[in-house]
């Protein structure tokens, strides 16, 4: 057996290490640097008597110290979810209106493209979008695909006949002077959304139930406005590229009773719309915006008796417009709820008004009073025929609808044995490509295994761990994105196969992964996994029982204090330290951690 290389700390830390170690003084941890040096087999000065402190231990010590300090200073740590005592008396009700950009090639009522010539303003404008006199709208049928898919994904009934209405108001981002929307007859009605604790619904709202149902009143198609930017005092620059882009407005019923649920609803809607390719730009890019309606009422009463679309007994509501992130939704609802409770408790009355929210603010600001409310004078648009959607199209889209995220997560959880959290992560990464990679890998491994005894969940768990952690780590350290990944499912399947058949250890597997990642697929000399194992002599040559014992004894003799810690003080965790030392000292590809642990435990006990 080769003599192990002694790990030594660099000279820069020698001064630090030379000071006497005591539990009271804190020293910078040498272990990170030591690890780095070891991975490159470098040594400098001789090591000190102080052993390297594992990161976990260091962090735990830091946390203990902070807590002790806080106790001394009588500082009470704030509870994470300090429930406002006023909420015992007041109940919140929220309704949400989500505007999402549809994923189409052309705009809603003109053939102008939605993409292309990025960066050039006013380059995708048709005559109708610029509202030249006499220009007529022409409904683009292709916009129905994402719209109907969105309606089906959210469980709505698609109406065969729906209408187009004009909503009149003057603004420079609305060249026509009216927006074409579907006020009287929307194209989809009566959907619903189910949310569970995993989606972010707090326990107070679930109240023991599995899930909460939030009804969707309707979904309607409408036009987007132009983009304006402010330059100077009151000068605005207008870009009509976005004018006329198709949007859908999803209106929920006021059946949401906490801010976290509201954010969860918007998140879920965004995920569902993305999964069916209906709306692919998210909130961060401005493709999805939410307006929330907030009201409070005393528990057990009917508020001011207001009702909205069948839900009655609500208080007076106010609307908060243009929230553009999930955090903003939560914060704005909390601020508005607190403001309304304060006003009502002081004996005041809530006015129905429109309010705004800015990031980092503590209260919503009034945008428009009730008297200043605009009268939109809705009227059916005479230029457009009613929209008639064929049932054959709806059926076809329903049958070919892609899996919704909730279904995918359940499927992955049950078929591949992943935890719900892991399943959620892998489904959401890289637009579903990582899940595809995992499923392909698992299939390849299953095919190549000689017998069918290895069940899918076992392979699935292993593959998922490798894809999430090993591959993920590889991508981060080499700063590559998923699209540029050169590893194929076949490569990973080969590595996992060897691992399952105990031909290599996990460390060797990671090495192979790194090597394959560095060789591009286009090079002719790209070796297969088998070739790499042969060339590098990486196959597991299992150590004999005697070999394990010898190695274990050698380490135990070198560190009697650790032996004492386990034997006398009963710190069972230290056993793994021994295993780690054995793996490091042993030759590459010889020591198996499991067997080493068994041997070490036996020796330490005996």
């Amino acid at each position, binding site marked *: 057996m080769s003599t192990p290389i002694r790990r030594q700390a660099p000279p820069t830390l020698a001064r630090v290490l030379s000071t006497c170690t005591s539990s009271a003084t804190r020293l910078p941890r040498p272990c990170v640097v030591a690890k780095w040096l070891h991975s490159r087999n470098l040594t400098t000065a001789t090591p000190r008597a102080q052993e390297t402190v594992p990161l976990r231990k260091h962090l735990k010590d830091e946390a203990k110290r902070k807590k002790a300090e806080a106790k001394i200073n009588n500082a009470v740590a704030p509870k994470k979810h300090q429930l406002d005592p006023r909420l015992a008396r007041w109940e919140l009700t929220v309704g949400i209106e989500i505007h999402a950009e549809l*994923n*189409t*090639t052309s705009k809603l009522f003109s053939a102008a*493209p939605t*993409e*292309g*010539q990025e960066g*050039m*303003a*006013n*380059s995708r*404008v048709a005559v109708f*979008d*610029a509202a030249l006199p006499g220009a007529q709208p022409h409904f683009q*049928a*292709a916009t*129905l*695909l994402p719209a109907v898919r969105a309606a089906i994904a959210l469980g709505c009934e698609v109406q065969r*006949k729906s*209408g187009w209405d004009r909503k*009149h108001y*003057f603004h*420079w981002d609305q060249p026509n002077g009216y927006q074409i929307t579907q006020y009287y007859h929307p194209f989809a009605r009566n959907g619903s959304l189910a949310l569970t604790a995993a989606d972010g619904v707090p326990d107070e709202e679930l109240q023991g139930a599995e899930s909460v149902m939030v009804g969707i009143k309707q979904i309607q198609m409408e036009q987007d406005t132009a983009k*304006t930017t402010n*330059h100077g*005092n*009151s*000068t*605005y*620059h*207008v*870009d*009509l590229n976005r004018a006329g882009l198709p949007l859908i407005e999803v209106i929920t019923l006021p059946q949401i009773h906490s801010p976290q649920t509201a954010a969860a609803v918007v998140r879920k809607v965004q995920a569902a719309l993305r*999964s*069916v*390719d209906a709306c692919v730009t998210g909130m961060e890019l401005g493709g999805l915006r939410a307006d929330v309606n907030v009201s409070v009422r005393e528990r057990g009463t009917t508020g001011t008796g207001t009702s909205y679309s069948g839900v009655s007994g609500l208080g007076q509501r106010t609307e908060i417009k243009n929230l553009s992130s999930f955090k903003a939704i939560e914060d704005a609802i909390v601020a508005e709820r607190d403001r309304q409770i304060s006003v009502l408790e002081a004996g005041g009355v809530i006015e129905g008004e429109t309010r705004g929210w800015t990031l980092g603010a503590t209260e919503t600001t009034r945008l428009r009073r009730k008297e200043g409310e605009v*009268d939109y*004078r809705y009227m*059916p648009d*005479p*230029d457009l*025929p009613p*929209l*008639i*959607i*064929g049932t*054959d*199209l709806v059926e*076809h889209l329903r049958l070919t609808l*892609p*899996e919704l995220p909730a279904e*995918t997560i359940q499927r992955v959880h049950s078929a591949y044995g992943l935890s719900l959290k892991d399943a959620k992560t892998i489904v959401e990464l890289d*637009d*579903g*490509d990582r*899940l*595809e990679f995992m*499923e*392909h890998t698992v*299939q390849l491994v299953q095919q190549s295994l000689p017998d069918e005894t290895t069940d899918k969940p076992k392979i699935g768990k292993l593959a998922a761990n490798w894809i999430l952690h090993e591959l993920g780590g590889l991508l981060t350290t080499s700063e590559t994105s998923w699209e540029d990944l050169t590893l194929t499912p076949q490569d990973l399947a080969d590595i996992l196969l060897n691992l399952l058949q105990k031909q290599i250890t996990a460390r060797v597997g990671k090495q192979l992964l790194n090597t394959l990642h560095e060789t591009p697929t286009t090079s002719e000399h790209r070796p297969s996994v088998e070739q790499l194992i042969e060339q590098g002599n990486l196959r597991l040559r299992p150590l004999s029982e005697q070999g394990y014992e010898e190695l274990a004894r050698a380490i135990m003799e070198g560190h009697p204090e650790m032996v004492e810690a386990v034997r006398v003080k009963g710190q069972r965790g230290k056993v793994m330290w021994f295993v780690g030392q054995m793996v490091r000292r042993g030759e590459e590809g010889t020591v198996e951690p499991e067997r080493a642990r068994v041997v070490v435990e036996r020796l330490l006990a005996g």
Partner: protein
Amino acid sequence: MSGLRAVISNAAPLQHVKLGSCRANALHRPFSRGSRRETREKGEEVDAAALLAEPTWSVASLLPPSGQTSQAPEISSKQLHHLLRLSALAPPKDAEEESKMLETLASQLHFVRDIQQVDTTGVEPLQSLRDETASGENASELGMAALSVALGKEDVRGKFHKRIRRRRDVEQTDEAAWDPLSTASKKVGRFFVVEGGKNE
């Protein structure tokens, strides 16, 4: 929504008014035929001059009667200003112009009330002239046939985890030949310029 709707709904029914040579009973049915046609016999020569001498209907019937106080509620100055703001029309410069505007608005409302006398129970409002027969509707239905081109522009991505993705190859259309900025009076670079200040 106050303003216009409130004013009209509170209106009293139109009064029976005699207007010169105009047939009184024609007032109740604004677009009714005059009685002259009934007296013409077959074969009799039509005296065109006599026929056209007397009007059977006058647009004056649509105006509020002069000298008689209108039964409609007054439109307040506040309502007038609200309506002018909604229509992006300039507010009145002085009290004289405002009273003139109110008068004009009152006579317009008189006309609208007249129209509203027509009984329309059970009649679906007409949006535009279109083929409303069943076959006409079926012809304008958007089904699989109409969407076949769009459906052909999508791909299915993945073998195990199938997802539909729209293909994004950008086609150059000829519509780009029109420059929207050519009609702009004020522009900066490729942007339209709007002065948003209130005192224009």
